[in-house]
């Protein structure tokens, strides 16, 4: 592969519709919350209270409920736009972060497995997600010990990279297939030489 067709966030972008879907869902949750709050909770509650402080607190809460649906999509776009990935010949180079930045380099030989998943809504709008896992830090048995409650639910983060997982969601389905194939080829051309397998 020559330099012109290196896979980056530009050639295989996270689709805006994924960002909208993902963060608007939380906005909708906030709106439902808002309706329940103003329609049911507040009318039944406000009759009994004359305390200024309590009324102030209730209004503060409602401001929060209004602001969340506006803030969430903006944050979503920022997260998406500051997430950079580049699949080079020997390393995956990743950068993320809005305020605190982080950068990570992953050698292909260290990849444990690749996931290609499609959620139900993702499937309807023609998207797919890629997740790449390494065996670093909190990915293995350690996180089981740390976090006994969540041991059955380790889908990990949804966008970005943290602990042992690199998640690239919301790719076009063809892009996701393409990326998976490319990673597989890179793994093949970067064999590991110390055989860390348990066998």
């Amino acid at each position, binding site marked *: 592969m020559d330099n012109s067709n290196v896979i980056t966030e530009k050639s295989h972008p996270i689709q805006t519709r994924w960002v909208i879907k993902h963060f608007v869902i939380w906005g909708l949750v906030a709106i439902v919350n808002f309706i329940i709050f103003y329609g049911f909770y507040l009318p039944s509650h406000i009759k009994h209270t004359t305390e200024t402080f309590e009324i102030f607190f209730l209004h503060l809460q409602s401001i929060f409920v209004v602001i969340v649906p506006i803030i969430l999509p903006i944050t979503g776009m920022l997260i998406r736009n500051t997430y950079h990935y580049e699949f080079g010949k020997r390393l995956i180079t990743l950068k993320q972060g809005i305020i605190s930045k982080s950068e990570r380099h992953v050698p292909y030989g260290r*990849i*444990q*497995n*690749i*996931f*290609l*998943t*499609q*959620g*139900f809504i993702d*499937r309807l709008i023609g998207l797919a997600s890629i997740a790449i*896992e*390494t*065996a670093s830090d909190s*990915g*293995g*048995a350690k*996180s*089981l010990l740390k976090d006994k409650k969540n*041991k*059955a639910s*380790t*889908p*990990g983060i949804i966008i970005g990279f943290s602990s*042992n997982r690199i998640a690239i969601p919301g790719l076009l389905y063809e892009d996701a297939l393409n990326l*998976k194939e490319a990673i*597989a080829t890179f*793994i*093949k051309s970067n*064999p*590991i*030489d*110390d*055989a860390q*397998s*348990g*066998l």
Partner: protein
Amino acid sequence: MKIAMSKTREQFPLSGKKPLKKTMPSIVSSVIFFVVILAGGLILASLLNWSFSLILLIIILIGALLSLSCFLIYQYQVWYFQVYFYDLTDDFIIIRKRVLTPMEITIPYERIQDVYVDQDLFDRIFGLYDVHLSSATISSGMEAHIDGVEKAATDGLRKIILEKVSEKIKRAKGGSV
């Protein structure tokens, strides 16, 4: 619907009993639920002098609903069985499953930590096995297994995976020395 075939699935097929086995828990719980309702209803009716025919009608209705739901679950499991895909390619193990939210896992052979085979209660009754193959991550342990294969296919799968893994490791070692 067409069955998702691969070379590996042709060679080591999933057992046709798999959908039934996966429906068994719901069948058993439905039967228990139905028996409890039947006994409870009849006892209550005789104690409180309710009309038997009405109670029986309600119970039969519940029974019909339960069997319908079991049938639908069975149909879903058949569908699941049809889209279940696994392939041992030259360099990777690929497993793809689930109907509505498909997920696919790709594991390089060098990264397989262990291959282990287990059976639960219904597996033993039906003579089926689950072949688990995980890499060093938790989610792969949860997702990467081929379940519902019979004895011969299990042994074949295990043998071929272990062979490929050691071959790969040997080759990697040879490269470095």
